[in-house]
């Protein structure tokens, strides 16, 4: 398949304007004739749904939770980037673009990232106008802080609850449209299939999670904004309802899945404590502004941190990366923590953690200043571990956090299925092989508020879309049957092991072999084991209770079944990419100092995987990445 990203010609700075100028428009009275399905109500979905309804389209919005406000975007803590240059510290659209593309280890599309940097400024204006209570200075202007991987302060925040406040802004905009009757809400619904008719996406099949009813919904276009698949690893910072189901089923209907192996491991999370943990808790990256990371210089040093004198501490990030110090990007910080622990310098009961120490900042600015910035994060830490970060250093360890991979989309955010768009974390577009902090919120809102409202008009006005009726459409009937069969098959197994148990075992296999570092032997072994686990799943998964009712074991089992298949695709992608880049660290490809070694000659491309049917091998399609504005450099944060 030839992948056409439809990137407009002309200079980088003018591409988005050029695209907007050439896109056809839908007339104001015609918009209400178009039905648009938005699956997902996180930042990407809620902002898209609200904006499209404001324009006059008929919008139907779906989410798994009982309320759109509970999408996982709500949990984002640290902040959102924008090239406003309010602090006058040398920021610009170009610099944000450059930092983001470099942070992504030169594995993202130049034109997309540049547009993202341009739109970043509008996002802050829009959110401020909605009443998002951003942090302010005494004079009433907006406050900024810095995040990993950059040398300027461009991150806007609302205490440690930035995602919550941005999402509530988008949710309120959406609820306003619901109140006005322009958007209809379908909460507690899980999308189980995409319906393609006449070669175009024309609707979805969803399960009502209360009644178990399988429903068909038709539309002129479908937007997937279903978030990331990080909890394929079982333990991650993602919410427990996270899944790959929506995008994976779209993949099975013909959408290509890009870079599935690109996973972000976040360096600052609360370490794993026991067997029966449902998830891991992130400690915002913003903490690295004031916290210093260290381990004892002696391996296996069991003294309490306060008893270890300065001279016997190794502030290894500051030592190895003097320019960026504690603010190196996530992939670099995570690997450095893993290396320290693997060499026996790790601290805490399991030896799988490092210190993040605030004592210098507390001496410098006073504890009050720390509480003002990080109060709720400190509280969260104390509640979970029983220790106060103001008294003793935090203990942190990397954890799965974000997935850069996702459905392949062109510059208009359309997948390879016409009429199927993909937004937010669910697409692959802007972060390459590693995402810089505070840029997911930016991307989700750029996609939803500022890109899709333009590009969808171009699609709808230029495409023949005959009416479909769900009742007599064969495609809908088949998709419904497919969904019903899927449920029946799961209920029919009647085994003895819980879906959680399979999920946990799958997660462990992936974490060990396709996590922070990967090698061919490990990947091949894991692929075999996952195949075995999948077979065992279909013989022994336990689901009790009917399909026509709230049945959370059934929901989980469906998601785990998809993860078990999807995990093989991740591994195939990780095997195929014989280089190290960003979050994808192949042990075979590293520099003598242990840094990632990219191979631009052979791997400067997006790997977009195509499904060819049950049992058939998947097909790799490559979109070459061309760089005109930036020079491909070995990333250095020294």
């Amino acid at each position, binding site marked *: 398949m030839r992948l056409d990203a439809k990137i407009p010609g002309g200079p980088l700075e003018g591409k988005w304007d050029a695209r907007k100028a050439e896109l056809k428009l839908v007339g104001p009275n015609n918009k209400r004739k178009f039905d648009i399905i938005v699956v997902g109500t996180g930042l990407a979905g809620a902002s898209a749904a609200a*904006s499209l309804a*404001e324009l006059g389209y008929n919008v139907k919005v779906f989410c798994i*939770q*009982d*309320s759109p*406000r*509970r999408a*996982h975007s*709500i*949990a984002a803590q640290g902040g959102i980037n924008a090239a*406003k240059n309010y602090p006058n510290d040398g920021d610009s659209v170009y610099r944000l673009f450059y930092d983001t593309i470099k942070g992504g280890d030169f594995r993202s599309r130049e034109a997309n990232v540049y547009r993202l940097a341009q739109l970043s400024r*509008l996002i802050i*204006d*829009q959110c*401020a*106008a*909605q*009443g998002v*209570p*951003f942090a302010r200075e005494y004079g*009433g202007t907006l406050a900024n802080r810095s995040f990993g991987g950059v040398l300027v302060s461009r991150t806007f925040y*609302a*205490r440690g609850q930035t995602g*919550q*406040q941005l999402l509530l802004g988008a*949710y309120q*905009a959406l*609820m*306003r449209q*619901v*109140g006005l009757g322009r958007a209809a*809400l379908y*909460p507690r619904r899980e999308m189980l299939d995409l319906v393609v008719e006449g070669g175009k996406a024309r609707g979805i099949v969803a399960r009502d999670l*209360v009644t178990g009813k399988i429903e068909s919904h038709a539309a002129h276009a479908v937007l997937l904004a279903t978030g990331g698949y990080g909890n394929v690893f079982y333990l991650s910072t993602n*919410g*427990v*309802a996270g899944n790959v189901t929506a995008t994976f089923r779209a993949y099975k209907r013909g959408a290509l899945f890009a870079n599935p192996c690109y996973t972000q491991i976040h360096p600052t999370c609360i370490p794993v404590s*026991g067997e*029966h*943990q*449902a*998830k891991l808790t*992130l400690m915002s990256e913003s903490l690295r502004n004031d916290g210093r990371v260290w381990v004892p210089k002696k391996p296996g040093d069991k003294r309490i941190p306060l008893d270890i004198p300065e001279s016997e501490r190794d502030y290894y990030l500051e030592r190895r990366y003097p320019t960026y110090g504690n603010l190196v990007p996530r992939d670099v910080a995570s690997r450095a923590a893993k290396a320290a622990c693997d060499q026996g310098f790790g601290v805490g009961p399991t030896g799988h953690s490092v210190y993040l120490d605030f004592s210098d900042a507390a001496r410098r600015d006073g504890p009050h200043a720390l509480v003002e910035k990080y109060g709720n994060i400190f509280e*969260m830490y104390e*509640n*979970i*571990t029983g220790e106060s970060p103001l008294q003793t250093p935090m203990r942190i360890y990397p954890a799965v956090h974000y997935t850069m991979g996702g459905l392949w989309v062109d510059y208009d955010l359309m997948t390879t299925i016409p009429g199927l768009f993909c937004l937010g974390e669910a697409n692959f577009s802007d972060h390459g092989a590693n995402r810089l902090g505070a840029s997911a919120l930016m991307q989700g809102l750029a996609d939803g*508020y*500022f890109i899709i409202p333009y590009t969808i008009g171009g699609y709808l006005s230029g495409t023949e879309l005959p009416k479909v009726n769900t009742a007599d459409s064969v495609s809908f009937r088949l998709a419904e049957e497919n969904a019903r069969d899927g449920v029946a098959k799961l209920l029919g197994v009647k085994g*003895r092991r*819980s879906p*959680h*148990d399979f999920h946990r075992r799958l997660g462990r296999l992936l974490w060990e072999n396709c996590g922070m570092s990967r090698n061919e032997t490990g990947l091949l072994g894991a692929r075999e084991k996952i195949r075995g686990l999948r077979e065992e799943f279909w013989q022994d998964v*336990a689901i*009790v*209770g009917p399909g026509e*009712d*709230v049945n*959370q*074991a059934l929901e989980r089992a469906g998601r785990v079944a998809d993860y078990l298949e999807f995990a093989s695709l991740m591994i195939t992608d990780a095997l195929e990419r014989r280089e190290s880049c960003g979050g994808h660290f192949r042990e075979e490809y590293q520099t003598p100092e242990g840094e990632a070694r990219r191979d631009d000659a052979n791997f400067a491309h997006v790997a977009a995987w195509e499904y060819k049917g049950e049992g058939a091998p998947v097909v790799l399609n490559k979109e070459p990445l061309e760089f005109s504005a930036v020079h491909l450099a070995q990333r250095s944060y020294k």
Partner: protein
Amino acid sequence: MNYTLRVWRQKNSLDKGRFVDYEVGGVAPEMSILDTLDLLNERLLQKGEEPVAFESDCREGICGACGLFVNGYPHGPQKGTTTCEVRMRLFADGATIVIEPFRAKAFPVVKDLVVDRSSLDRVIAAGGFVSVNTGNAQDANSILVGKDRAAKAMDAAACIGCGACVAACPNAAAMLFAGAKVTQLALLAQGNPERERRALAMRERLDLEGFGNCSNEYECEAACPKKISVSHIARLNWEYLRAAALSEPEKVEVGPG
């Protein structure tokens, strides 16, 4: 550690429901109460029994999905935490822990510990927003908001919409929930133009949804996992009275269902 979980089981909204006792052993002190319910559910599945339905997503106190009565308190006896943040070290080994759904007229039980809180969404749809369409907002720094005022707005905006305030209130009022949103937006210049309309519409919607009235019991503040202050209720009442006095009350449109 070992516990007896006394859990409310109810098939659906029509079923009368009852408590069932379950023994759960092998619990670690750092586990949350939801981890413990997960463990119970895994064991129930292994025995071929139907697991307990309950809601959660973020498991870190921010999404507002979880919400259980634990030993008679919404989100448990510990102040300022959500159910998912309640750790087992809070309970003595061997204790019996009573777990029920949030109960209120406006929150019908769906199954076991799952209730329907969509009434809260409809209160927001009635007026809990700033009417600004996407695009063409002015530069963010052209709206100045003093640091303290922004901090107060943020205190109010911290609400996670869990409904604990409603569940705690003897009248099942949602005044703290609505008051927090009205306060946040009233404190900001951006929210000012619609201040009256918002207070009237949200107040009216509360009645329509079957929420009760405030009789100053202060239970809501005590139960709020985000420690949102009852002063926001006073603010809501004040905004409502002010709006009613200021405007020849225009006909307030309440959005459909």
